[in-house]
């Protein structure tokens, strides 16, 4: 044996002094890889010294025994406070017994140096045996490196045992890697864009880098049954960026280890401030704020995560056979443009990239079907981005694609992929300001852009949720007439956080206004989106009040204006709060939002008949007068006495059009306008009020086989009614026959002027139609409220929707001498929800009249 060792004086001093030097070098240079490789070399030299002192006077002796570096140490990645994984490899039997003491002393010396040693002792045969309860050992062998001892023994391990083990057990190894990865992601927020990420174990951290390397290595070993060339594991176009990300993360992890004095890899806010000040990983930057530095971090982490996730997705062994069957089914989604293989999108023809709309069509495809891009397709997208930047899709064309992406069930995934490839910020530069933006807030978990995607995801997820609360909100979502506008508002609602402004809400509205103008949205749609953004904190703020207090409900109702806006804002609030962090939307909050919603919705319905006064000076009136300066008294007399609800629900352009129709009543007493809306047909009637008018209108539509889904009927002080009916064309009469439009209008015109036999038309229609049993039975319910309105009696009818229902209800009103001041008609599935503000002889209905009406309605609706 060699001279007696005194680690207290020699190795301890060596380790201490070299550690100080490595630390100083790092603080000076910020070079993580150098520090890491330096520490590895230091520990290598210590291990060699100990080998020579305690095991053998020759570095390659004795036979059948070797010491091997594993895991991070094997990779030469010894961070300042990393564990040191060592394998004592031997031939077994007597050899082990003979070496036991020396192995113990070797290990003890390292522990005495305060090195966190994780030793393992195995024979070659034991290394080759796969232990399903310790797959981590098999994984650590992938990074094995010779330190000292029998080179031939090590060569057998490296060249024979490990390739054989991997080829045989790749499925189990990769399955375990998948499980570990999933658990890791769950623990660290399932997002790269965590405000305080873990640079080792979080998504996009160094563990993901290792994962990508292991998966690529295992796949190559499976194919060749040997060790591949490291440089060929990833395509060249990716390798440089991937390794740059690795070096960056290594420097950050070194910094954190030195800062914390232990193996603590959490990049908390205080550490972010310091790492930015030191410009770690960005030495050439002039100066960096923590927020700017974090953007660099997220850029690297996003790439590492994407590569790791793609390799995991592409590895067949990672997925159980049922999943593969599902993915094979999804291959049937392939079309002329896109091939779907194992859930990943490939381009059928590369030349198709010359079509500048192809990327948007691809992301729309992705959003519809929940697929991911193959790495080849991602690379192709990156290559085509510069030419796309020169002539990007814009205006209504861009909005058309965005609409379809936003409302698709996997919109968030598609948007994330677009954002990751820089396509989203190319098309919507407004999004650039919140790219990887950190806003320090103890309740928020994610960067602002990620928060936005999570919010969109939350809304889409409502439809699949089994929770009682989510199902209520899901029903609400199904009622929203223009969900695309809701999702667009969510996408843009926090863009103002990237602006230097006292109020991010004001800034978001300003930024969104520019975006919406560029997308060529119609004025009413723009107003809706801007309203949602401007008010996106209002419902949350109202939760801090007494949500059942009339003052609170009145205040909220006043801000919302219409039930549709209330609905959309309620859903936006739900999605926004839930995206703050997974615990933010407590059941307590969800219930309170819901209670506030229904209280306000009921209030809006019951207060619908508050009337406009033409001499009032409010924003809406002022705006209308500005748009029609010549109209003067004509506008005033048209608006005077109309319900405020009319002004809130009609765009200014519609109000002006209705006013024009009213001015032509002298030429034709029945003015009709028929248009095709996005979801339904719209028939607008302007005429003088008279008995049975609403009923005859409803009857005419029913006689033509139209299904009324919504209607709003208003009248002004002069007795001019403005009724709009939204209907679906059940038998595609109008859709398939353009000339029928005029015939239809002429027919309705005649019915309203009593020139056509409505009863006969209805009888003919009913005779020609089959009776179909309803899928859902709805009980008839009639609620009469005499207190909500000062002028009218509110009658709400909930009944089974069927052809002619509205005609029957409104005819009954007319027979009972009730005048419809306002009608608000909605349909929810097979449920008709109709609210009528009625008067009789210019006043509310007496209690006796109410009861007569109730009995008459019930009898009418009970009859076939």
């Amino acid at each position, binding site marked *: 044996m060699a001279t007696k060792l005194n680690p207290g004086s020699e190795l301890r001093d060596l380790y201490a002094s070299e550690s100080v030097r490595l630390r100083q070098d790092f603080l000076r240079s910020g070079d993580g890889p150098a520090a890491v490789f330096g520490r590895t070399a230091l520990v290598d030299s210590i291990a060699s010294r100990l080998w020579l002192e305690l095991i053998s006077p020759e570095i390659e002796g004795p036979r059948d025994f070797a010491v091997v570096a594993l895991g991070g140490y094997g990779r030469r990645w010894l961070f300042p406070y990393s564990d040191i994984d060592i394998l004592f490899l031997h031939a077994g039997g007597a050899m082990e017994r003979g070496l036991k003491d020396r192995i113990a002393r070797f290990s003890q010396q390292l522990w005495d140096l305060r090195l966190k040693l994780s030793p393992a002792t195995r024979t070659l045969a034991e290394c080759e045996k796969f232990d399903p309860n310790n797959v981590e050992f098999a994984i650590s062998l992938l990074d094995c490196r010779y330190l000292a001892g029998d080179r031939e023994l090590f060569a057998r391990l490296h060249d024979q045992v490990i390739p054989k083990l991997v080829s045989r057990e790749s499925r189990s190894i990769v399955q375990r890697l998948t499980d570990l990865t999933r658990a890791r992601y769950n623990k660290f927020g399932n997002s790269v864009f965590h405000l305080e990420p873990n640079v080792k174990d979080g998504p996009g951290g160094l563990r993901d880098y290792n994962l990508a390397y292991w998966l690529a290595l295992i796949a190559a070993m499976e194919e060749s049954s040997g060790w591949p060339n490291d440089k060929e594991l990833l395509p060249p176009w990716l390798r440089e960026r991937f390794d740059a990300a690795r070096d960056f993360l290594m420097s950050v992890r070194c910094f954190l280890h030195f800062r914390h004095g232990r193996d603590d890899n959490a990049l908390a806010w205080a550490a972010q401030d310091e790492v930015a000040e030191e410009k770690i990983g960005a030495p050439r930057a002039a100066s960096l704020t923590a927020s700017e530095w974090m953007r660099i971090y997220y850029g690297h982490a996003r790439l590492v995560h994407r590569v790791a996730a793609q390799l995991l997705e592409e590895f067949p062994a990672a997925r159980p056979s049922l999943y593969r069957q599902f993915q094979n089914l999804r291959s049937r989604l392939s079309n002329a443009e896109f091939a779907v293989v194992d859930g990943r999108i490939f381009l059928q023809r590369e030349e198709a990239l010359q079509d500048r709309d192809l990327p948007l069509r691809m992301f729309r495809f992705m959003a519809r079907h929940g697929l991911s891009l193959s790495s080849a397709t991602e690379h192709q997208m990156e290559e085509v981005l510069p030419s796309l930047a020169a002539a990007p899709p814009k205006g209504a064309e861009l909005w058309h694609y965005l609409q379809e992406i936003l409302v698709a069930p996997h919109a968030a995934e598609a948007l994330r992929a677009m954002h990751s490839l820089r396509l989203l910020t190319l098309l919507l530069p407004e999004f650039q300001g919140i790219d990887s933006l950190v806003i320090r807030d103890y309740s928020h978990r994610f960067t602002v852009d990620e928060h936005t995607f999570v919010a969109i995801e939350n809304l889409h997820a409502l439809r699949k949720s089994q929770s009682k609360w989510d199902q209520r909100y899901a029903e609400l979502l199904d009622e929203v007439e223009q969900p695309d506008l809701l999702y667009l508002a969510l996408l843009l609602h926090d863009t103002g956080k990237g602006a230097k402004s006292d109020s991010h809400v004001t800034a978001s509205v300003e930024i969104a206004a520019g975006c919406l103008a560029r997308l060529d949205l119609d004025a009413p749609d723009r107003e809706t989106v801007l309203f949602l953004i401007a008010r996106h904190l209002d419902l949350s703020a109202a*939760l*801090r*009040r007494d*949500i*059942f207090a009339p003052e609170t409900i009145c205040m909220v109702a006043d801000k919302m204006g219409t039930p549709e806006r209330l609905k959309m804002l309620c859903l936006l609030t739900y999605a926004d709060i839930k995206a703050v962090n997974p615990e933010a939307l407590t059941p*307590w909050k969800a219930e309170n939002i819901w209670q506030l919603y*229904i*209280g306000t919705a*009921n209030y809006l319905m019951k207060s619908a008949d508050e009337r406009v006064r033409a001499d009032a000076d409010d924003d809406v009136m002022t705006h209308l007068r500005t748009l029609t300066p010549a109209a003067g008294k004509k506008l005033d007399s048209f608006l005077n006495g109309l319900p405020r609800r009319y002004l809130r629900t009609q765009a200014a352009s519609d109000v002006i059009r209705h006013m024009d129709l009213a001015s032509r009543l002298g030429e034709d007493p029945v003015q009709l306008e028929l248009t095709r809306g996005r979801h339904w047909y719209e028939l607008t009637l302007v005429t003088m009020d008279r008995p049975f008018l609403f009923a005859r209108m409803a009857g005419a539509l029913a006689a033509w086989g139209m299904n009324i889904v919504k209607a709003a009927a208003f009248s002004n002080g002069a007795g001019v009614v403005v009724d709009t009916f939204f209907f679906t064309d059940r038998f595609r009469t109008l859709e398939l026959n353009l000339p029928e439009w005029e015939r239809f209008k002429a027919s309705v015109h005649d019915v309203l002027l009593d020139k056509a036999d409505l009863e006969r038309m209805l009888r003919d229609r009913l005779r020609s139609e089959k009776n179909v049993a309803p899928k859902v039975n709805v009980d008839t319910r009639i609620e009469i409220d005499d207190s909500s309105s000062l002028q009218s009696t509110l009658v709400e009818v909930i009944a089974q929707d069927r052809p002619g229902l509205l005609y029957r209800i409104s005819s009954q009103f007319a027979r009972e001498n009730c005048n419809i001041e306002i009608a608000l008609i909605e349909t929810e599935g097979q*449920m008709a929800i109709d609210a009528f503000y009625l008067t009789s002889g210019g006043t509310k209905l007496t209690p006796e009249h109410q009861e007569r009406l109730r009995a008459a309605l019930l009898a009418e609706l009970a009859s076939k």
Partner: protein
Amino acid sequence: MTKVEAVIQTSKLDAVKDALHEIGVEGMTVLEARGHGRQKGHTEFYRGREYTVDLIPKIKIEMVVADEMAEKVVQTVVAAARTGKIGDGKIFLSKVDDAIRIRNDERGDSAL
């Protein structure tokens, strides 16, 4: 040491918090709660369905203070939380055996 548990209206949280800070109470725990006393709930109808609210949303504030502070805390909460209507809430007092600061093992009043 005395534990003070105050069940108050949600709309009074900010006012009560500010008032407690002014008298030097910095540590408190705030919990989302539901409940009712004599204030009963109500029923709301929406789209033909009945939604009964029998447990009203409330906020519960818990804090442990030195015995000699307890009465001042009670009066402060009452003053800030009171509206005079049913539903204002209640305050409960109980004795605490000990308090320990996790960071440095301090005990008793100095841990508060």
